[in-house]
């Protein structure tokens, strides 16, 4: 356990040193505050308006940004150490492979959690201080809920990035694969589902089709946020899920499954890696 924490601690400090923590926090704070303030611009007014509208739109923006940041943060975790020669060295220390990998992931998870709390938390404070029609108590629970699942979404993609990193031999390959993964989950997947709907003129199994959304962690994240703010009008692909009526619990469970699977996958791949 000690070794895992040592590695995690080092990774987290690297994140502070490289300004990763600062940059991510700043991006999240700007994004959230900007959206909260200008979100209602389309309806002719600027300023802090409806909280649930803000958080639901923030969720659809977050699914682009969070996976990208997480993948960039962690794609070279293993392959980078291999290229600099320190991986071989670390393996001669009293430290097993899974401990090293888990330590690395934990360090990255800490960076992500810390930045998400600071970034979105900051925007909550700004909103609470300047908005006249939202009180502090109204903000607390929705923001905590949102931040918790934003962190989990980041952790999922860190685990996926680590899986990529553990399975390739070159840094450039890891970067390319990470980009492809991002593209698939953020664009391709939803587009394909929409394409399927349009192509079959909606003639798909209405029972089964919504479950396809569970195959994409970014969609699960958006469904969780939407299900929390249930009064929201569902638009786009998310409307499909109305038929299925996923319970919030089942959505949370499928998100947890999305978290555990790549963690185990990364450890399995790293154990097979040749030194």
């Amino acid at each position, binding site marked *: 356990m*000690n*070794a895992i924490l*040592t*590695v995690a601690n*080092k990774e987290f400090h*690297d994140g502070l*040193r*490289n300004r990763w923590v600062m940059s991510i926090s700043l991006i999240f704070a700007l994004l959230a505050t900007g959206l909260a303030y200008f979100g209602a611009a389309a309806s002719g007014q600027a300023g802090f308006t409806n909280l649930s509208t803000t958080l639901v739109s923030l969720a659809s923006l977050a699914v682009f940004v969070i996976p990208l940041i997480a993948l960039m943060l962690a794609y070279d975790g293993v392959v980078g150490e291999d290229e*600099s*020669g*320190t991986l*071989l*060295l*670390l*393996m*001669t*220390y*009293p*430290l*097993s492979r899974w401990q090293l990998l888990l330590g690395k992931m934990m360090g990255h998870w800490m960076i992500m959690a810390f930045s998400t709390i600071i970034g979105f938390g900051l925007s909550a404070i700004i909103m609470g201080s300047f908005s006249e029609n939202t009180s502090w108590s109204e903000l607390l629970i929705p923001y905590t809920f949102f931040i918790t699942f934003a962190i989990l979404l980041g952790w999922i993609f860190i685990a996926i990035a680590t899986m990529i990193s553990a399975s390739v031999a070159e840094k450039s390959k890891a970067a390319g694969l990470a980009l492809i993964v991002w593209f698939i989950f953020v664009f391709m997947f939803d587009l394909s589902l929409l394409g399927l709907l349009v192509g079959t003129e909606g003639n798909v199994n209405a029972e089964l089709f919504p479950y396809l959304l569970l195959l994409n962690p970014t969609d699960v994240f958006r469904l969780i946020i939407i299900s929390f703010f249930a009064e929201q009008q569902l638009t786009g692909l998310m409307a499909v899920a109305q038929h299925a009526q996923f319970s919030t619990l089942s959505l949370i469970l499928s998100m947890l499954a999305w978290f555990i699977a790549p963690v185990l996958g990364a450890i399995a791949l790293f154990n097979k890696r040749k*030194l």
Partner: protein
Amino acid sequence: MNIVELQQVGKHYQGVEALNSIDLSLQQGEVLGLFGHNGAGKTTTIKLILGLIKPTAGQVRVFGEDPTGDNAYQLRRQLGFLQENVSFYQQMTGREVLRYFAKLKGCDKKQVSDLLEEVGLDHAAMRRVKTYSKGMRQRLGLAQALLGQPKLLLLDEPTVGLDPIATQDFYHGIAKLKAQGSTIILCSHVLAGVEKYIDRALILGQGHLLAEGSLATLTEKTDLPVTFSLQGSNLQLPIDLQANSSAINGGYKVQVSQQQKMATLQQLLAISSLENIDIHMPSLEDIYTHYMNDVQHGEHA
């Protein structure tokens, strides 16, 4: 108990033979030089001893145990390893790097300062590794290998990139560690200067053990000649030496077997017009070249 014991060890990767029936036993306090061309199997041997890979034939024992077995965790606390070209963490300072490795090895923090001083990096301890020269990185690597006072040290190309003075310093360090009772495996293809500091040499070629033994044994075994270079005008060589000589710039070169060295030297000193004499004893480099030539001839045959 032998510190390191290899018995008929072989390793092949997907049909490529990296090592073939290697035997080796290393006692406490010995310094072994591991030599060979690129791809001869030096690094594979080191990795086997470190327990990073498993042999496909034979068995490896370190401190009497399997280095890939259940007890590997404990064994590794007593091992020190410095590999070729490790660049460490560029953004961290020398002290931070060493602290990290010390924590992982479960050593006392106090060792970090002591070791930095020992390798002469105390003045640069607070600087980022990014700013270090090649030699400084190598010294940081050595400090890392010495964490926890390991009983067995494996050094892979430790002097690559070091200037002659730094190389000398490095070998002095090795001699000191040996005096303290450490067992050391030194792996290199830079041969000059190593002789004095190793007890035994093991020469590998294409995964096979070509020769193993002390320098004296190897010199005797290879029976390489002693070479005298003679300088002088109108040198008249004794008749019995003429067959073994060849003309060089401003004199002669005479080669005789090691047993005849003293007799020949007396003969040569008696030559009246002799102005200068240079004696070259077979060195580690000559022994190495001799075995390497054998391998190459073997290939052509």
